[in-house]
């Protein structure tokens, strides 16, 4: 039986700690390079190493697949996931709460910012057709959506937030090379701080490589990753409005 205090990777037997790794080295394949590859795995703390595939990649590169075992174990009971605490609501609950309790229409400005042209993720959350079997926020009667689309400069996002008196900004970032997403998000946050708008805004980002951790790092309130559905985002917004009203 698995112990919650000591969870280990499982390949074929409980607690065998089995892990597969692969990587390339910028050196040609040789007996020496194979040993180097094993040492890479060794430095990760893997034991019982089996270098099971090594392939020259040409032009002084080589590729390795290794299986090994880790003795490290994870204490599940020490892992607390913050987002789990937010009560999830559905379309009806959310609109009900906004219409009758909060008595508010939520204005949302959404954009894929910077040079990023990936709109599918943002549209999944905003546009009527929605995602994962759910309607998007455009269909929520208590939401008013301004979807600015792709490749929007941060300055324009700011302008629109001011113009529409937005309650929420939803920023999508998909391209992450050279950490461009973090730079873009931080930049917007700085702009908002500069205009003293940050406080009153619910600032949310999303994208395939985004999670709450990343979001908090760049000064956002929340971050949503792969598989997010519109109601999850709306739930967060409504909860946040409630929390702020109470505070």
């Amino acid at each position, binding site marked *: 039986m698995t112990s919650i205090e000591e969870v280990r990777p499982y390949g074929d037997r409980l607690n065998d700690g089995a892990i597969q790794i692969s990587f390339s080295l*910028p050196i040609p394949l040789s007996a020496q390079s194979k040993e180097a590859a094993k040492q890479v795995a060794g430095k990760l703390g893997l034991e019982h190493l089996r270098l099971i595939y090594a392939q020259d990649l040409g032009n002084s590169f080589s590729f390795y697949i290794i299986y090994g075992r880790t003795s490290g174990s994870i204490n599940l009971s020490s892992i607390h996931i913050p987002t789990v605490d937010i009560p999830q609501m559905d379309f009806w609950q959310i609109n009900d709460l906004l219409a009758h309790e909060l008595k508010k229409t939520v204005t949302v400005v959404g954009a894929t910012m910077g*040079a990023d*042209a990936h709109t599918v993720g943002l549209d999944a959350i905003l546009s009527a057709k929605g995602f994962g079997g759910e309607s998007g926020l455009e269909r929520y009667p208590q939401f008013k959506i301004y979807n600015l689309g792709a490749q929007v400069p941060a300055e324009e996002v700011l302008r629109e937030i001011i113009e529409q008196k937005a309650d929420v900004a939803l920023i999508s970032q998909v*391209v992450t*090379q050279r950490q*461009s997403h973090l730079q873009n998000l931080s930049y917007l946050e700085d702009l908002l701080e500069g205009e003293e708008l940050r406080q009153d805004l619910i600032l949310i980002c999303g994208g395939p490589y985004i999670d709450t951790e990343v979001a908090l790092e760049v000064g956002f309130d929340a971050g949503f990753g*792969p598989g997010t559905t519109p109601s999850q985002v709306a739930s967060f917004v409504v909860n946040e409005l409630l929390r702020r009203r109470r505070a």
Partner: protein
Amino acid sequence: MKLAISSEQVQHCRAMALAIAHEVQMEISRMSTISVERSLLRLLGMEGATAGIPWVNVFLEQIQEHNVLEDGALYWLGNTLCATDLSISQIGQEVGEGRLDVVKTVRHPLKDIQASIAAVTMESLRRIFLLRAQRRQFRNGLPIHVSPLLYVIVASGNIHDDIAQAKAAAEQGADVIAVIRSTAQSLLDFVPEGVTTEGFGGTYATQANYRLMRAALDEVSRKTGRYIHQVNYCSGLCMAEIAALAILEGLDLMVNDALYGILFRDLNMVRTMIDQHFSRYLLGLFDLIIVTGEDNLIKTVDAFQEYYIVLTSQFINEQLAKQAGMEEKQIGLGHAAELDPSLPDSFLWELVQAQLVRQIFPHSPVKFMPPTRYISGNIFFAHVLDTLFNLVAIWTGQEIILLGMPTEGIHTPYVQDRYLSLESAMHLRSAACSLRKELNFRQNGKSKARAQGILDQTESTLSEIEQIGLWTALNRGMFSQIKRSRKGGRGYEGVFPISQFYLNPFLDQELVKRARKIAR
């Protein structure tokens, strides 16, 4: 392996596409753009930048400022050549460094200007024909490739890493290397200068980067005994300039689509049409191959229901390219299926669609593009889908396969990702080499029905576009539900009607013929 579709219906589609293309052509025939003008300057050898701003841009800004853009760049270049004893390169430098304003040079008679521009154009054409002939000779000196060509991308953002990986890929079996561009380059109205090492999701296209990559690929071509083709994107606000640079630096293929910029980069449609026309004219003239981007059309809409838009766009792209003088064998139409893997019969549909394209465009080196939108972070399942894609490509006899990567859902390819993809494709190139000959479609099965359905939808779409014109079709969102207005989008300010002084002897067929003859 033929699908029993009617050749009359295909001819009808082609005729309608021709009418559509022709109408566009008529409307833009007396227009040019700043990108076209800059490309002319570049063809004539104006290369250089000051403080990051290319001289050709400063040149255009000068004539734009003085409201004489309509005369075109060559008129003012010709005048400056007559008025000074500077070379083109020197003019560039003087202009770029702010010491010379070309519009302020003494005006010379038009025929002197024409003569001086004809002379330098002749020289440029001759030089380029020679360069292309040398390249052809180098390529022909190496053994012929096994078909299909295997096309992979590099996109590290750093040209040196790109080169290292491109050479590795070539040694692994790649035949075609495309350097993906940094994300926003298509929105820039200038071509960056010099060797670059920082890009996002790709590497800047610059003349210097092209040159470095070309040298590296020639080196590895010699090493592997296979000619390695170099590809870049001929798109964005600098489409025509990029064509010029690619020609000068010996590239082989250019990703070049008539509609992509309009739809997916929100570039102005008139600008794009003029730019694509002149780019294609140049590329055709100097024997490069273009590959179009129909894969993009089904990345955001239902790829099964709206597949006909791929075929529609292929007909239009083909005719626009022909209007620019290209031959069918130079027009690599883009094909992709992008079907939801959970769709029953998805493999069959992909096979049918692939065969349909192959059959309708038998001389096109179709660029067969892999699944991307349904690829998740599961690198193993991505490899499954890519393997099936490779099989379909080889089975239906495609000429260029852009290989899907196991890490498509994660990052631009790592050095080993290309190896794994090439391994799968090379296996199938051998293992499935006779499939095409050995198998036939059932006469009246659902394969035939699917093919017919697509063709019918394409026919009626083309017929609608023929009636309303391409501009209106774009306006109504007939392509992937994206709506664009005629004067909207980036770059419209760079479009202008040409004046009676306007010069472009690169279009002079007599001159071209003579230059070609001399270069032999």
